[in-house]
């Protein structure tokens, strides 16, 4: 391990995994119900494959290359850094909004919005103060708790699974493709991954494809469970997984949804903090040296400022914007990286 690297590749991938997993549990309120498993599962596989294909070039560039020029430093210019910071801050704001809406949705006693956002931002700020290392270690534990919650939820719903709830529809390629296209999102967490890559030893391989495969498997398991328990009801539910958590019971404890919600909120805090870390990382490249020690405040400040903006924009618009922005930034980064690698190789003969 070199002196720069403080995080392992596995930890970074776990961070990516948790950040994307939690979106399956805490769904956006405008995304509609879960499509039937018969369509959702092949669509998920297609989307996972498409995302993996799109990441081939950036990942290859990061791993390969002749020198140190681009490897580990995805953001070469301040402009790229600025846009990355903006996208990540917006993603963080969107995550905070969704988490707050979900928390209010599941609570009998809703809390003031301002208070909830203050708690979220304070947690993110503290995470920035503790540093990237602390965050990825905490994320490892939070992932364990999240997966334990999911496992508990699946186990507690086993008794309610019915084979005949699985929709039996004719196999339609068109329907699957439509579902895949409708559900395809390039999350800004992918951008975060490349931004945080410098923290990892350059020689260490990052199991990104495996992470995407695990996400796909996770979604398949959730989709199957939701369909098997809820049947047609799953399509009518916005928070399908939350409904599952409300149904499951273990012995005398019949209403465990509050427990699951707590585990998911922890995961949301981790995700928000990770995105804040990404913003800080990008902001550090923009700020002059004398202001760099305040990068964490700027990062949290950006998040706070973008929250009301994102509330106004709406979740669907945001997710479309994220997909486009992430794709554009990844493309620009890749092209820019290629150019730099080329010039570096020329310089070194």
């Amino acid at each position, binding site marked *: 391990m070199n002196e720069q690297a403080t995080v392992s590749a596995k930890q970074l991938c776990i961070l990516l995994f948790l950040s994307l997993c939690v979106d399956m549990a805490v769904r956006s309120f405008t995304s509609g119900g879960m499509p039937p498993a018969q369509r959702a599962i092949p669509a998920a596989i297609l989307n996972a494959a498409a995302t993996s294909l799109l990441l081939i070039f950036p990942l290859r560039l990061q791993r390969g290359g002749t020198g140190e020029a681009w490897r580990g430093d995805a953001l070469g210019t301040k402009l790229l850094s600025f846009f990355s910071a903006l996208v990540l801050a917006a993603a963080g704001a969107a995550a905070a909004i969704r988490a707050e809406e979900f928390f209010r949705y599941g609570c009998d*006693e809703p809390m003031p919005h301002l208070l909830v956002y203050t708690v979220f931002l304070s947690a993110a700020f503290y995470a920035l103060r503790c540093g990237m290392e602390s965050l990825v270690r905490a994320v490892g534990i939070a992932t364990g708790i999240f997966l334990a919650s999911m496992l508990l939820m699946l186990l507690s719903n086993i008794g309610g699974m019915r084979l005949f709830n699985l929709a039996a529809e004719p196999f339609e390629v068109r329907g699957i493709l439509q579902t895949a296209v409708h559900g395809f999102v390039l999350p800004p967490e992918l951008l975060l991954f490349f931004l945080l890559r410098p923290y990892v030893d350059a020689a260490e391989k990052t199991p990104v494809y495996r992470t995407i495969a695990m996400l796909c498997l996770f979604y398949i398991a959730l989709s199957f469970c939701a369909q098997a328990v809820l049947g047609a009801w799953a399509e009518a539910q916005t928070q399908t997984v939350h409904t599952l958590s409300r*149904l499951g019971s273990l012995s005398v404890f019949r209403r465990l949804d509050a427990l699951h919600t707590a585990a998911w909120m922890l995961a949301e805090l981790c995700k928000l903090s990770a995105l804040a870390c990404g913003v800080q990382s990008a902001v550090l490249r923009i700020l002059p040296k004398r202001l760099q020690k305040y990068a964490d405040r700027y990062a949290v400040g950006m998040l706070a400022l973008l929250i009301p903006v994102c509330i106004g924009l709406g979740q669907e618009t945001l997710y479309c914007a994220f997909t486009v922005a992430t794709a554009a930034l990844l493309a620009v980064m890749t092209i820019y990286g290629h150019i730099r690698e080329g010039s570096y190789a020329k310089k070194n003969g």
Partner: protein
Amino acid sequence: MQKRTVKLLAMLLIALLPLCGCSRSLGERAIVKIVYLDESNGQIEAGLAVFTCTPNSDTASVEGEARIYTAQGASIEEALYHAERQQNKKPFYAQNEILLLGPGAAADVTPYLRHFAAENAARPNLAAFLTPLTLEEFAGCEEGIGDIVREGERLMSRGAQGAALTQSLFELELSGESGMRGYLPVFSFSKEEKDFRGVRQLALMEDGAPYRMLEDAPMQLFLLLAERSNRLTLYTQIDGETVSFHAQQLCLTRVSSMAGGVPKLTVRLTGAVEDITADGVPVEAGARQNAAGRINLYLNELAKELNEATFARGNDIFHYGWWMKQFDTASCEALLRAGTLYETAQIEFISDLKPV
């Protein structure tokens, strides 16, 4: 810098102390255990069974005491709102798992169920029951409410005879243009003895209204076919004899096929039948095979009646359509769209119980 952060966070926490009053203590909540809805003279009637507790710091002998609050309104929301306002605590519905629908509501239960089936309106495992009680009779049942709640909770797990008699909201067929289809359990009540007898009947529902009541043997076979139970304990008349028997760990297998564009499903019931008696006398070993054969024939006939009462009417409670689709989804879908699946499909039930 780290110390400052900690201090700031500590100050934030202390600054939240004035928010002490923001949460609602448990004592300020009215714990609603049962919601009763009925319709009478164009008005919706609502009843809430609220459990309260007498203050006691030593909780050894504390039990919930029921109070019933009733009100009327032009709509379900209004009626519930007025019922909640009969007492001064905030209603707490998170522990409410029982919805009782009175005789007036039974005319069309669909709007009532759809009201609670809206996302997050109620817990998804809310179980709906029909009841012959009117609102006044329900209001007079404060002493027996505890029994209803306990019975309801027992039924929602595996109740008597190992059957889960209830259906949660998410299991009900509410999405069609016509009203609710399926079945609902009926909470029996003896008006003379003011005694709740649990669930002894099931109501088959179509267009939101019951069209047939099942009890005793048909009810047990119904639950078996609906995979709510895996045992039969019957006491019934077969060929003029009073026959009783016990069968558990029963297994249903379904084999679907297609013949000339007509889907066919064979449902086979296998398992062991024991403790066979005829007219109160245990059947001897040599005669058990014959007795089992008669039981099988009886069950075949009963299943046929149930299929005519359900599947043939398009009320596919036993999900035969799903099994048929496993064989040939496209054809079955086409028949379903044409509205002829239930007419043309053939269901053959074969009971193949063997004596122990």
